[in-house]
């Protein structure tokens, strides 16, 4: 379709065109088919069954009998009435935004630092990848120990440098638990940002900086007018992937706080899990899952719009 549309006008005419385009369209379709089938089976089917499940009273019994009565939007109504839901939405947003902002900022800072060539730069950089290589359950468990109020190393360190008088209740107060979980997730996500942004920085030609230096640009101006605009495509990818990863984070929260204390770190993912596998209200669990999908799509569309706008801006 696009091909025919973009074909330059005024080329020698047409009798050959239908004959040539028909087989090529078929071939194109043949190439497309496996991917289409894959998407339908592995993405389309679960998505639709999740939608269907969210309109059913799906219980443990339904797994055996295969019968789940249709209840319309009752599950959604129940979820909206659930007092935890508001907290979960707010926490999901705070967790996602908090994680991404700091992961990106720290990742970019480290990437710029390691972009300068110095002894041991490569070794250090690969060491910094460590958090990314560890299974999330391991990182989560270790952070849970480090954040322990009485015997955790973080409070010990804070006491040692006299930054804190008493032990900070990282995981035991409803106010501190969410920042503590976000902190853990930031630590886990920094290497990913570091690696991709470092790659992006490497792709920026050195002579642009030389030219900027000749023009008398200081470090900030070089960053603002050379690095930042040229890094923009990579930035977009990092933020987009970061968003997709972060909004669905489940293991980290589950291991560090289990959604507690007193629901203070419940997000939509942990709530969905709790409804499905603690309460056995699979329909409501599916409903929360669908709400999460909608939220992610909204975030994604907003991002795509802004990316398109900024792309148009750079092009013009």
């Amino acid at each position, binding site marked *: 379709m696009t091909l025919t549309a973009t074909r330059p006008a005024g080329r020698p005419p047409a009798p050959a065109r239908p004959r040539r385009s028909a087989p090529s369209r078929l071939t194109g379709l043949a190439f497309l088919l496996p991917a289409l089938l894959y998407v339908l089976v592995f993405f389309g089917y679960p998505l639709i069954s999740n939608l269907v499940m969210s309109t059913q009273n799906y219980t443990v019994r339904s797994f055996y009998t295969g019968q789940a009565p249709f209840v319309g939007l009752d599950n959604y109504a129940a979820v909206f009435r659930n007092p935890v839901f508001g907290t979960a939405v707010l926490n999901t947003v705070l967790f996602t935004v908090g994680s991404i902002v700091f992961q990106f900022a720290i990742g970019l800072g480290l990437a710029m630092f390691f972009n300068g060539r110095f002894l041991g730069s490569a070794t250090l950089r690969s060491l910094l990848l460590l958090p990314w290589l560890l299974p999330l359950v391991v990182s989560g468990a270790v952070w849970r120990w480090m954040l322990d109020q009485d015997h955790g190393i973080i409070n010990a360190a804070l006491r040692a440098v006299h930054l804190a008088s008493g032990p900070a209740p990282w995981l*035991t107060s409803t106010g501190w638990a969410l920042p503590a979980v976000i902190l853990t997730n930031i630590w886990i996500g920094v290497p990913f940002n570091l690696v991709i942004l470092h790659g992006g920085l490497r792709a920026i030609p050195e002579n642009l900086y030389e030219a900027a230096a000749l023009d008398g640009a200081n470090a900030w101006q070089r960053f603002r007018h050379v690095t930042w605009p040229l890094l923009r495509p990579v930035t977009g990818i990092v933020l987009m992937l970061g968003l997709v990863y972060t909004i669905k984070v489940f293991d980290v929260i589950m291991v560090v706080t*289990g959604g*507690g*204390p007193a629901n203070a770190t419940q997000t939509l993912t942990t709530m969905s899990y709790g409804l499905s596998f603690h309460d056995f209200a699979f329909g409501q669990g599916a409903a929360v899952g669908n709400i999460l999908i909608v939220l992610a799509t909204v975030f994604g569309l907003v991002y795509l719009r802004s990316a398109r706008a900024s792309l148009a801006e750079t092009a013009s």
Partner: protein
Amino acid sequence: MTGIGVTTTVLLAAACSPSPAPGSGGTGPASAATSITELDYYADAQGTAAWQKILDTCAQQTGVKIARQSIPTAQMLPKILQGAGSKTLPDLLFTDNPTLQQIAGTGALTPLTDYGISTDGYYPGIIKAGTYQDKVYGLAPGVNGLALIYNKDLLSAAGIEPPKTWDDLKAAAAKLSANGKYGLAFSAIPSEEGTWQFLPFFWSNGGDLSHVDSPPAVQALQYVSDLVSGGAASKSVLNWSQNDVADQFVAGNAAMMINGSWNLARLDAEKSLHYGVVPIPAPQAGGKPTVALGGEVGAIPATGDGTQKAAGKVLSCILSDPTMLEWSKAHAYVPSKAAVAAEFGKQDPEMQPFIDEVGTAKSRTADLGEKYPKVSEALATAIQSAITGQKSPAQALQTAQQAGGS
């Protein structure tokens, strides 16, 4: 399709066995199969070895081959649900007793009377835990419960006797707390584990799961949250699983802990640690604690006459007195028959407090059946709300009653 599958299997079985298989096609009683599949969650090193030994014994005694599958606890129910959905349930399964109601509710299980397994001699709480709609679907070779485990050295250095009442416990725990160490450790994490640790306080004081906001329940939650706010227990109980609690106890950070018998082997491995076990303190002097029954029940899903029969033979063997005793010794469980438990108590005095408690222990699903998981989750949240000071115990339990009841 299924019909053809079944016929082919039967024909194949007939072709392989020397004598013709009687009762093929489900018209008469099928003979027992020669091999079955089994599913359990004894995934820790000690538990898995002990359980394998039991299965080997019973495979030998019954002549049935057992293909065992062992998975982490958290995956048990999802795995069973998958199996139920795709009709690939194991022939014999051992699951945490509060989930039995859910599984039996699907209609996937068969009553144990079908296999001539009787409930004579079992503690009543255990029979109740395995009963769904007046039929027994699951029985346990052993159960467990919670008790108060104390560090003998720390208590005697402070001149404190092991506590018997709530007041004793509070005073002792307060006296033993100083310099970053606490008198008492327990688990109050936001899951079934947290509820299970609270239930001995809740029930012993006269709480009732169908009215979780009753005055005795509020009093129990007040007592537990006062232990934390008074500094007798760390606020980190909000994050400690029972394994973490045992770690704290072993490290000497807690002088007493509420924990289960399955941890005793681990404590025994610490040569410098001298510990004692007493029942969980009761609200008043002379009172008896009511703990929740823990442990796994064996159940037989409807997988076909032949395999069910074979599974029935294996389960009978597992539930027989000698195997029951062997399993209890190997994994520090309490045998589920009173007579066997009494015998075990004579051999292992440290288990006696646990054995004493099983007599009065209550099954978690006794009052609520399938509704238990929802109430349990609401209760776990209430415990956390009270300990963090988000809500007063009364408010927290009112919220739980609304959430669990709706």
